[in-house]
């Protein structure tokens, strides 16, 4: 009962709790950005720094926190939680921490709201600043980069600790008694950091969060905490979160240039679609459709020509989805960034499926020039002459000597007459280069020749039925042996 609380005090208290919750989220998320945080002290009060602490407000984070709260405040049974998780570039993910802002029923009627509660909330925020640097996830977040990113998810409702693995530990940051209940801030963090592959399909992921899906109150959103500079290498940056009924409008500004607001992993959501219904999962069965939808959206804007992705190139589609970034703002901006992607080395993909601009292909000299000609792909079929793969040799230039075509039967390579380092023409009758060229294609070993191989294979095939018959007779022995192993 809070009849003893004046209406002004009640208003103040609600405001304090609301802004405390928002600042708590800011502190936690900023502590997982991977960078050192620094704010300045100011002797003159500006009136805008809540709790007399200089804590910057990242607009997207505030926006998401407000959405999660949806006008409510933490109360008994309704906690505000910030989940911090790690996601590798291969798609494995792991929950690291859950920060909980809870309220229990224990009231302190005597406490002064505008003074004591406010100052204690300020102290609690300072404690939060200190504690966020000492949990194991802090050091992980400082080292995030190309191999993994740290993600956060805000939700409101019941605390879900099951994703933290066995033996997770809890640290209490602090408590503040108020006339309407006691605010408690704590963190449950994983201690078993052994990685288990948690790659899931969309269906599996829906099962992970059953209560979240069912709850009308819960609004889940996910963003990367990596700074934009780190995400420019087009790394997967969104985190699975179940679609809550309340989570409309997925198409809003996303944090840190990497936050694809995806309801499920491997789903691509193009912001700008009202109602936020995600596109089909870009798993291989739907690759074509997803690609076509994407292409349908982007062709009018940038005029690039894209051919349909075939199901066989599903790994490429996944590369695209894994490397896509969606930004806020106009669809044009978004689509520009979606296609700023790196084609991985060894990817056998027709060149016209990627934008010509902004493309940075590693091992460009090995990029296939012809469509789907695997035979010509040097990385698939390495040429017989190994020295032509070496970029060093490619840089040695010829003095016009002849006899340079032996051994090289591939049109992709320009044959240059090379002078091996440290060799001199006039010392030996046969110089090193000539020797190398003459003997660079030795004949195959006879034991590896096709005829002999074919013969032995034929013999093997003939004897196979007999061997099978023998083994079938001894089935019982084999079974007994297997039993002993178990």
């Amino acid at each position: 009962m809070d009849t003893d609380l004046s209406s002004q005090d009640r208003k103040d208290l609600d405001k304090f709790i609301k802004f405390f919750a928002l600042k708590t989220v800011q502190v936690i998320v900023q502590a997982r950005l991977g960078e050192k945080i620094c704010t300045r002290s100011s002797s003159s009060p500006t009136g805008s720094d809540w709790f007399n602490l200089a804590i910057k407000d990242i607009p997207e984070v505030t926006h998401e926190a407000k959405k999660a709260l949806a006008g409510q405040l933490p109360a008994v049974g309704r906690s505000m939680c910030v989940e911090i998780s790690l996601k590798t570039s291969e798609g494995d993910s792991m929950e690291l921490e859950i920060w909980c802002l809870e309220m229990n029923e224990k009231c302190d009627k005597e406490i002064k709201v505008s003074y004591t509660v406010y100052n204690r909330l300020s102290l609690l925020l300072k404690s939060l600043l200190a504690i966020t640097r000492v949990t194991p996830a802090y050091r992980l977040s400082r080292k995030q980069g190309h191999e993994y990113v740290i993600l956060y998810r805000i939700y409101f409702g019941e605390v879900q600790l099951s994703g933290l693995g066995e033996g997770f530990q809890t640290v209490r940051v602090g408590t503040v008694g108020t006339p309407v209940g006691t605010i408690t801030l704590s963190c449950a963090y994983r201690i078993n950091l052994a990685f288990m592959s948690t790659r899931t399909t969309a269906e599996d992921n829906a099962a992970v969060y059953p209560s979240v899906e069912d709850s009308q109150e819960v609004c889940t959103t996910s963003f990367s905490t990596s700074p934009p500079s780190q995400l420019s290498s087009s790394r997967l940056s969104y985190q699975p979160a179940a679609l809550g009924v309340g989570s409309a409008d997925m198409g809003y500004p996303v944090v840190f240039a990497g936050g694809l607001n995806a309801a499920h992993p491997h789903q691509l959501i193009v912001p700008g679609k009202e109602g936020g219904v995600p596109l089909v999962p870009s798993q291989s069965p739907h690759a074509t459709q997803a690609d076509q939808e994407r292409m349908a959206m982007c062709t009018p804007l940038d005029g690039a020509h894209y051919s349909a992705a075939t199901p066989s190139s599903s790994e490429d589609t996944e590369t695209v989805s894994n490397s896509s970034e969606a930004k806020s703002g106009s669809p044009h901006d978004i689509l520009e960034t979606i296609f700023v992607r790196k084609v991985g080395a060894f990817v056998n993909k027709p060149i016209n499926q990627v934008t010509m601009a902004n493309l940075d292909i590693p091992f460009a000299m090995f990029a296939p020039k012809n469509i789907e000609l695997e035979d010509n792909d040097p990385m698939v079929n390495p040429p017989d002459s190994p020295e032509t793969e070496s970029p060093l040799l490619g840089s040695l230039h010829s003095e016009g000597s002849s006899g340079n075509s032996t051994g090289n039967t591939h049109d992709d390579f320009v044959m240059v007459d090379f002078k091996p380092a440290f060799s001199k023409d006039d010392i030996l009758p046969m110089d090193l280069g000539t020797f190398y060229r003459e003997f660079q294609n030795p004949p195959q070993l006879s034991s590896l020749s096709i005829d002999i191989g074919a013969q032995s294979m034929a013999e093997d095939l003939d004897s196979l039925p007999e061997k099978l018959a023998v083994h079938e007779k001894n089935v019982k022995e084999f079974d007994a042996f297997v039993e002993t192993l178990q």
Partner: protein
Amino acid sequence: MNCRSEVLEVSVEGRQIEEAMLAVLHTILLHRSTGKFHYKKEGTYSIGTVGTQDVDCDFIDFTYVRVSSEELDRALRKAVGEFKDALRNSGGDGMGQISLEFYQKKKSRWPFSDECIPWEVWTIRVNVVSLANEQERQICREKVGEKLCEKVINIVEVMNRHEYLPKMPTQSEVDNVFDTGLKDVQPYLYKISYQITDSLGTSVTTTMRRLIKDTLAL
């Protein structure tokens, strides 16, 4: 009123002394500093804003948060530097302790000088170890980092018990409770002292006056 006393113990290598002490002292002072008070008419006051910054340790796998005040940082570094030098020069087992004491001043009538009444004392006992090789040093980096994490959690736990704190003073009394000499933040009045245990087990007490006041007096 009893003075609250908390003791923390750490074992560190010689070159880690300064960073470990600064980490603990700054964490405590983060909780015991407010923004600058600006008194208005009718006894009300407004409070300035305290900024914070992360500090990475060079010799320990640890990052701590301190108040963004260069003056305060300099004062602590000076005190810790003297403690470290005393510890290293003592030639003893390498054991000592540094104390951070928060106190209130109580005005006394002339000719008696003002009384300093401590209300919270933090004592950090330090044991300096010698390490033989680089591998041990690397392990020590991590271990001391983990230990300091525990210490921070201990400090936060004590701070959030919400036990005695001096009452917010009126304008005339503010210097009896807070150190108003810094330009950007306002910690509670504090003093730092240290003791080195020499090889005979007796303690050689060195008390330093509050560094800010000394610096200003010069």
